[in-house]
């Protein structure tokens, strides 16, 4: 039994994986619940709009991400900031194939989050989701439209395209975020 082996080795039991608390936001329909469920190997056929919060422990090889996903409907968005306290990182998901109007709304929300006092020093993973749709804008276009270079200067952020059809790439994006979180931990002297 694997439980016994570590105690035979002189080093003792392996240290548990570090955990990081993240908040996951984005407009309704951007795909937050679907992506997070797939990361947890859960069924995604019965997913409806999230009408509150959904906290998931997403395991990776060298960390566990405790992600607090918040519904994106208008009635819920107004409560987002109630959940920012204690976050160590942000995942922002947007629909790359949405209407211009919705894209503008997503931009407004992302800018708000980037400037929010409780989030502005944290690493951001921005996923330009629904890349599989024909109308999806490229990540270059998204980066330009969202003005990430000027607006997120000095902050640590990652922008990647994503689609539920390619979960390996999504995992890779999250692994990059974990590296940013580890760096930040070392900077603040936390273990």
């Amino acid at each position: 039994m694997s439980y016994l082996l570590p105690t035979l080795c002189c080093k003792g039991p392996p240290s548990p994986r570090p955990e990081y608390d993240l908040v996951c936001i984005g407009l309704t329909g951007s795909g937050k619940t679907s992506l997070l469920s797939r990361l947890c190997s859960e069924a995604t056929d019965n997913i409806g709009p999230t009408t509150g919060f959904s906290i998931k422990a997403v395991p990776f090889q060298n960390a566990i991400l405790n992600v607090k996903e918040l519904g994106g409907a208008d009635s819920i968005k107004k409560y987002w900031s109630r959940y920012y306290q204690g976050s160590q990182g942000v995942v922002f998901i947007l629909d790359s194939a949405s209407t211009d109007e919705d894209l503008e709304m997503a931009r407004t929300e992302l800018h708000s989050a980037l400037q929010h006092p409780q989030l502005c020093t944290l690493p951001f993973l921005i996923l330009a989701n629904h890349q599989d749709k024909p109308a999806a804008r490229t990540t270059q276009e998204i980066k330009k439209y969202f003005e990430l270079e000027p607006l997120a200067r000095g902050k640590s952020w990652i922008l990647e395209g994503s689609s539920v059809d390619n979960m390996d790439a999504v995992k890779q994006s999250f692994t990059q975020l974990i590296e940013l979180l580890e760096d930040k931990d070392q900077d603040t002297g936390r273990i």
Partner: protein
Amino acid sequence: MKVKKGCNSTDAGVPVTSEDELLRNPVISPEDVLGLQKITENYLCSPEENVHMIDFTRFKIRDMETGTVLFEITKPPAPAGEKKDFDPNGGRFVRYQFTPAFLQLRQVGATVEFTVGDMPINNFRMIERHYFREQLLKSFDFEFGFCMPSSKNTCEHIYEFPPLSEDIMREMILHPYKTQSDSFYFVDNKLVMHNKADYSYSGSP
């Protein structure tokens, strides 16, 4: 979500309390239940005290190492117009039946889904205490924090199994339902719900 572990009375720095004492208090606080040394005989609050209309609708356990879902139960929605359970404590108690292999697990993810009535909740907190006979095995303390009005929320927290000696595990397997838990739920530090469960690890009903 990080769960505060090891909340034995001495760890938590709270005085030891007894069920009888607490039943005399008008309000029961988190510190009160952290002092309890054994499973309660009675429920420490009535179903009517759940003024925020918190309703648990789904529960699932999975093994974090393999991702395998070990147990899942969903509360069927009550059809409109049907009378609620006559048993006031119906739905406050669950009996779990596991095989001995369950005790070998190290990390389990427990997902709970709950709905909230039309009042927002500022600070929702759960303290769950597991005992085998009179021995406290583990205490979990989890803050959900703010809950939006009329919301449906899910939360998965990771339970790390306490290291159990072979002796205790053997006893737990031999004595079904002597492993028991109390789950206490607080809104703004006031007890509003109390659920109970017991557990068998013998693999048979």
